[in-house]
């Protein structure tokens, strides 16, 4: 059977890597290229990758542009454009090339590393730096922008407009750099072999946004007005976006002394009535665990966004991995039900974080949002997301409510909350087990009542259809979550084109586990493949523990730091399809 490749898939688009040493401006060029593409009417994605150095290391902007929305990187890059080659060979794994690829560098800046030439890619030398030197005041990365943008089929006006919109320096230098873009654009005329996007039509109403920004905006839309957090890669940009944004809507952000403070500050602020959030990555989540348990016990709503990175311990801070899942669903001491949700795309970081605020507030529970570095730090061109209207609203009591009991054993499990300032209903929020009135109790009955109540309120809530993205049908289902959803969706399209249809179940609600929801989504499914980006098959094991999956469930899992690619997932789906067919005793229907 033929391996499906990007060339057989419609709308695969164009993949461009801009690389160079830190300070060479490749990230700026990449950001402007994405912005210009958005103005021209394309969709796109830009993944940032860099060495561990803070300044002066190697960097690359990995860009994919297409006429349809882009949620994952492609298997191969059509164009690698390097401003210089200093340590760029370290990205060989992240910038896969093929014999059809084009590599452009400048001979004077060194030879193309063997890791790239060995792919059979066509290597060209262009005088990028020399051209920039010929235009006083201009930069090499702007020549590269003109070149790459034009090869991609983006009109020069859009490239120029992108630069003008972002320009904050002296106007004379702007003219020089516009000339540099033009010089780069002219150089593109001599280069063939890069598949430019077909003619685009400028469109309004699109957004250019990172997952971290989207999560921050979703949080504010949901009602978050206080954030306490400690800087950590790759969550910092979420906080840096929220700090001024919160101020504009009457809220505030406080930089805490550590993650222990962050979580306890937001439990305090939320106890005082203001919807509150913190954002962190794995090491911070580990430190916050005790405070999250306090929020479970005291029934205080808080939202914790975990922008996952390679672990354990310090791990691989600036690269993506979905390996905090086990910790998020089970990393609290005691029996401590909590909400865990995962956005399925950069755009969905907005909706899912907003939903998390809504759930946390409605259920008086901590909600952990599992984003990751891939979504958080990448920028995408997306359609303006609809406002799904999820608003954080908690059940409260008014002044002097009669017979108030903070932890009353209600049928729903949700007990009306009293907010400081409200007379006649004072109580002490406590991490100690308590009776319905909130008085500390070590009694067996009180413990049982409160444990049941905290479990019940999460189980009985009506999560509606938003718990998962369920798409397509077929007897084979791929269950996944988080940033794996984008490449899985693309792989399913490729497998379908090769004659193996599969159903997608991308679970947005990870915990609490709701078997009846998944059972319904898997109605008619005979075989399941679970896809995730970690070494321990954490999601697969979680599903096996909490759900009855049909047939003999299979797992595709591999760790970061390399992003999941559609081709490897399409292979896994086709292989699962073959096994499903052979078990069912029917011939494989794969066309290819």
């Amino acid at each position: 059977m033929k391996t499906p490749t990007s060339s057989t898939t419609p709308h695969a688009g164009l993949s461009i890597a801009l690389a160079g040493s830190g300070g060479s401006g490749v990230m700026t060029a990449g950001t402007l290229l994405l912005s210009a593409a958005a103005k021209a009417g394309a969709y796109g994605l830009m993944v940032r990758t860099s060495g561990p150095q803070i300044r002066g290391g190697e960097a690359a902007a990995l860009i994919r542009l297409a006429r349809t929305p882009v949620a994952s990187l492609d298997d191969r890059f059509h164009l690698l454009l390097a401003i210089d080659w200093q340590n760029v060979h370290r990205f060989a794994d992240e910038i896969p090339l093929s014999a059809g690829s084009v590599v452009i560098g400048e001979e004077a800046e060194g030879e193309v590393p063997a890791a790239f030439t060995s792919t059979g890619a066509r290597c060209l030398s262009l005088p990028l730096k020399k051209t920039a030197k010929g235009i006083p005041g201009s930069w090499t990365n702007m020549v590269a922008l003109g070149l790459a943008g034009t090869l991609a089929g983006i009109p020069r006006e859009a490239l120029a407009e992108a630069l003008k919109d972002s320009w904050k320096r002296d106007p004379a230098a702007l003219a020089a750099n516009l000339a540099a873009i033009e010089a780069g654009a002219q150089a593109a005329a001599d280069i063939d072999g890069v598949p430019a996007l077909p003619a685009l039509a400028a469109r309004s109403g699109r957004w250019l946004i990172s997952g971290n920004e989207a999560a921050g905006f979703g949080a504010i839309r949901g009602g978050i007005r206080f954030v306490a957090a400690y800087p950590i890669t790759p969550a910092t940009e979420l906080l840096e976006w929220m700090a001024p944004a919160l101020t504009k809507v009457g809220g505030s952000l406080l930089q805490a002394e550590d993650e222990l403070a962050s979580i306890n500050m937001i439990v305090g602020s939320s106890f005082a009535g203001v919807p509150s959030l913190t954002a962190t990555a794995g090491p911070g989540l580990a430190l916050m665990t005790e405070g999250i348990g306090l929020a479970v016990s005291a029934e205080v709503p808080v939202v914790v966004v975990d922008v996952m990175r390679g672990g354990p311990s310090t791990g691989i801070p600036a690269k993506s991995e979905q390996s905090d899942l086990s910790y998020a669903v089970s990393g609290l001491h005691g029996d401590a039900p909590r909400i865990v949700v995962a956005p399925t795309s950069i755009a969905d970081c907005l909706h899912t974080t907003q939903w998390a605020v809504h759930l946390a507030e409605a259920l008086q529970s901590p909600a952990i949002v599992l984003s990751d570095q891939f979504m958080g730090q990448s920028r995408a061109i997306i359609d303006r997301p609809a406002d799904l209207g999820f608003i954080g609203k908690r059940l409260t009591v008014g002044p002097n409510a009669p017979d108030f009991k903070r932890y009353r054993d209600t049928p729903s499990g949700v007990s009306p909350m009293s907010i400081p300032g409200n007379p006649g209903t004072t109580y002490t929020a406590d991490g100690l087990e308590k009776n319905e009135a909130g008085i500390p109790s070590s009694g067996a009955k009180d413990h049982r009542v409160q444990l049941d109540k905290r479990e019940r309120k999460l189980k009985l809530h009506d999560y509606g259809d938003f718990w998962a993205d369920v798409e397509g049908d077929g007897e084979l289902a791929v269950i996944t979550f988080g940033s794996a959803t984008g490449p899985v969706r693309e792989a399913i399209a490729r497998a379908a084109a090769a004659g193996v249809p599969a159903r997608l179940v991308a679970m947005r609600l990870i915990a609490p586990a709701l078997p009846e929801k998944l059972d319904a989504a898997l109605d008619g499914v005979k075989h399941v493949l679970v896809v995730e980006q970690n070494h321990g098959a954490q999601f697969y094991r979680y599903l096996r523990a909490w759900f009855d999956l049909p047939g003999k469930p299979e797992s595709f899992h591999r760790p970061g730091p390399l992003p999941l690619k559609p081709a490897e997932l399409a292979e896994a789906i086709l292989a699962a399809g073959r096994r499903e067919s052979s078990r069912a005793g029917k011939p494989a229907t794969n066309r290819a």
Partner: protein
Amino acid sequence: MTPTSSTATAEKPAAVLTHANYKSGAKPIWCPGCGDYSVLSSITKALAILQRPPEEVVVVSGIGCSSRIPAYTSCYGFHGVHGRALAAATGVKLARPELTVLVAGGDGDGYSIGGNHFLHACRRNVDMTYIVMDNHVYGMTKGQPSPTTEPDWDSKLAPGGTGIRAFNPLVVALASGANFVARAFSGDPNGTADLIAKAVRHPGFSFIEILSPCVTFRPEQRDWKDHVHPAPVTATDDPARAARRLMTDDGMNVGVLYAGNRNPYPLGPKGKSVPLADLEAEFAP
């Protein structure tokens, strides 16, 4: 910033509030003779001096004998996890600047597991009052040395003593930027109540170290009543003078020892709010 709840403004009670109005009536778990009974009484007396309605006061604590205090008051209480009371209280005050926030706890909670938060609460200077009931021992876990325990104090966990010098919380508070530093003695509940009321009224972060004997594990602390004495000079607003005094005093000086005039951490909304839709503008390509 406004809470999402219906915190309707209730009618203020017309009658004068007495210290009894601030007691929940719950029976403390403390040992007979514990200094913390007096501190509880001082807190309720201070609130009566201040005439703050109980529902507009939040008493926040961590873990330890003294940290059980919130539930013994009729105020809103927050009994969180060990060492994090100051963090939780900071969240409460930033969310609801109009509330009066008292933080209470012991020497282990505040100076050991919560030590980092102590430093940063002092330097952040959020307007709240931190009351530490210092008895130089971990009482709830039955007699282990705390950061303020003398180096030669013998215990099961540290036979013959820890051999490390005791922590000086007042000096650390001053050096870290606390805006008000006082020492009190639980055996003088009225004097302590006055100090607490002063601390609450003082802008910024106020710190009161209360010598509060543990008669169970440190029975010798019963003698503190014979050693405490009023601070010989009045409070200064000069950190250098206060530092010299705190570095050289006998640890039994009672009174306001430093009252600074540093600007507190700014609270409440900054500027006019914009509609949420305005935030979207920056996402346009």
